[in-house]
């Protein structure tokens, strides 16, 4: 490696750096940019991909119908936060400062959302969150198209307690969402006079859950509240099934959706419960239509779940807010985002102005025979005020 080649290598590297700093070129009619920070790797990628497909369909439909503010098209700029809070912060800053987006959509984990919130507040850009979470966020710059314990746990725990027994075991990831959901579960279990016989948290990436499965089997619990979504959750359910415990102990898998059908065998997913505002198999015209449109756009074997609907709904709300505000000024968009209603996959869903939370129609779903079907339609549920009377700061 003579020194001449080294000089060429050094020159090439420096050229790359200078090239990289060149400002991006400006396109035709100025698009209204929406930033997307979702996990496309690192553990929660199954939810990230769903969110991206929901947002893409909404933007395509809006642009086909003439875009917003006299013909300006919407444009999605998608960033992968690798399921990690630190990357989420970096990507959010990049979208706001460099790409000058009017709103940032995402992420998935509550950890990443809490990390991104100060960035949204500092740079005065609305953060549109579309994943079910533990509730309690009350922030002018954060909008939550999410089911919270008022929607799911308050209904699920009594239902399972009455049907299968009042002893519960909670097993979840070791971060804020599972910890807060455990509190909600504990509250509801106490209300129905049941007992939480064990709680355990696990880091990401554990490959063998035998010790935990052992403890659950020994605890005598009748219902397991599993708060380990994504790849590690599949590993757990697979091993739980192999130990033959699935028929003795019922599993409620939080945030589980149609993705579980492709990842698990029918035998492994059999008998698992979930609570969601939308199921692909829901027998309602708007549900069938939504699934059909997704299939037309992304192919017949595309997975369509609640996360697709929630991100589709967020884009629709944003469009309505921009139209009402008549400008792409972020503060005005925020002021007009409240008390808007959209119908996506399961009846009208309203974004409340007072706490930026949703009024949703809820379903209890059950995995059976390799399909996710409606076990019980809970109808319209109005959650408690997440700001508890204080105004949005």
């Amino acid at each position, binding site marked *: 490696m003579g020194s001449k080649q080294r000089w060429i290598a050094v020159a090439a590297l420096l050229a790359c750096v200078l090239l990289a700093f060149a400002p991006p070129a400006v396109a035709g009619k100025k698009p209204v940019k929406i930033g997307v920070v979702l996990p496309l790797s690192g553990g929660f990628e*199954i939810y990230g991909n769903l969110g991206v497909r929901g947002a893409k369909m909404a933007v395509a439909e809006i642009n086909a119908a003439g875009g917003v503010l006299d013909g300006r098209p919407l444009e999605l700029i998608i960033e992968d936060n690798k399921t990690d809070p630190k990357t989420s912060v970096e990507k959010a800053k990049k979208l706001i400062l460099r790409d000058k987006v009017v709103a940032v959509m995402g992420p998935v984990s509550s950890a990443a959302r809490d990390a991104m919130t100060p960035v949204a507040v500092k740079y005065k850009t609305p953060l549109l969150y579309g994943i079910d979470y533990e509730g309690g966020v009350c922030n002018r710059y954060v909008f939550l198209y999410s089911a919270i314990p008022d929607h799911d746990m308050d209904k699920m725990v009594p239902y399972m307690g009455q049907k299968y027994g009042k002893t519960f075991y909670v097993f979840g990831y070791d971060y804020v969402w599972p910890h807060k959901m455990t509190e909600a579960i504990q509250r509801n279990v106490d209300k129905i006079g049941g007992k939480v016989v064990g709680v355990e948290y696990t*880091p990401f990436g*554990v490959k*063998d859950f035998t*010790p935990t499965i052992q403890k659950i089997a020994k605890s005598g619990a009748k219902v397991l509240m599993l708060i380990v979504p994504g790849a590690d959750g*599949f*590993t757990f359910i697979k091993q739980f099934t*192999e130990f033959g415990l699935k028929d003795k102990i019922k599993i409620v898998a939080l945030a589980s959706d149609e993705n579980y059908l492709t990842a698990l065998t029918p035998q492994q997913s059999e008998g698992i419960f979930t609570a969601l505002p939308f199921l692909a198999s829901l027998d309602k015209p708007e549900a069938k239509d939504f699934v059909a449109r997704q299939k037309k756009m992304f192919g017949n074997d595309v997975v369509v779940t609640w996360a697709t609907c929630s991100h589709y709904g967020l884009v629709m709300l944003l469009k309505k807010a921009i139209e009402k505000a008549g400008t792409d000024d972020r503060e005005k968009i925020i002021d007009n985002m409240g008390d808007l209603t959209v119908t996506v996959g399961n009846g009208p869903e309203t974004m409340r102005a007072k706490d930026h939370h949703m009024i949703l129609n809820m379903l209890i779903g059950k995995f059976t025979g390799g399909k996710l079907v409606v076990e019980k339609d809970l109808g319209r549920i109005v959650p408690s005020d997440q700001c508890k009377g204080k105004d949005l700061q």
Partner: protein
Amino acid sequence: MWDIGIQLLHSLNYILVLVLVAMGLVIIFGLMRVINMAHGEFFLLGAYTVVLTSQRGLGFWPGLVLAPVIVGLVGMVIEWAVIRHLYHRLLDSILATWGISIAIKQLIIIFFGPAGLMIKPPLPQSVHILGLVYPVYRLFIMGVSVAVIALTFYLFQRTDFGLGARAVIANRDMAAALGINTRRMNRVTFTFGSALAGLAGAVMAPLMSCDPQMGLGFFIPAFLSILVGGAGALSGVLVGGAVVGGGDSLISFLFSPVTAQIVVFSLAIVLIRIRPQGLVGGRRHE
């Protein structure tokens, strides 16, 4: 009764898998004085070979046979391209194999995507032993691990190849002066060590969801087992594996997986500091 039986079986299962992964590592480190930081990614390649054969409809078993062969070949190529130039530069071999591990991880992400992938379990049945339900496949894993470990011991203790390899481990120059082709021995050893890692990956793949980041999860405990047990002799791996693997599964049961990892790693570091030559002793390889 339920938990003691399962606890023993689980500990045995994890120890054997750890030893299987560590075996390849200690042979390469012992014989070639090379630390292969990409060993975890060889494990990964083995797992994804099985994922590939399952996706292509060939099923698990051809993948199990193919994995050690493919990963062995990859090891041979890497030994020829990179390791061969770094024999006398141990620290550089650590860094170079580290770079290779990053590259392999990314190749897996490019070809298989970043998401976790599952494969259909080859032996889904469970069996009733000691009055409890235990997956047949985990017994199969233990069987394979014991067989391979025994084969490796036999190969190194009882055959001419083993004699030559141990001679190179003990005194490389003298072995060469006796006519042993140390360069070919290095290539064969690195290939064999890589194949072992590939096999371990393939065997473990059906048990869990495979994702590109899982290599490290097996590499660090395996390497700590070597350092705790002592890299001098093959038996060191068994002792080290028992301490690290047994400790991890026991503490996971008594407390939680998170505590287990913290305690076991800290224990390993203290042990390495107190007995650098490892529990089994023997000359410390410097």
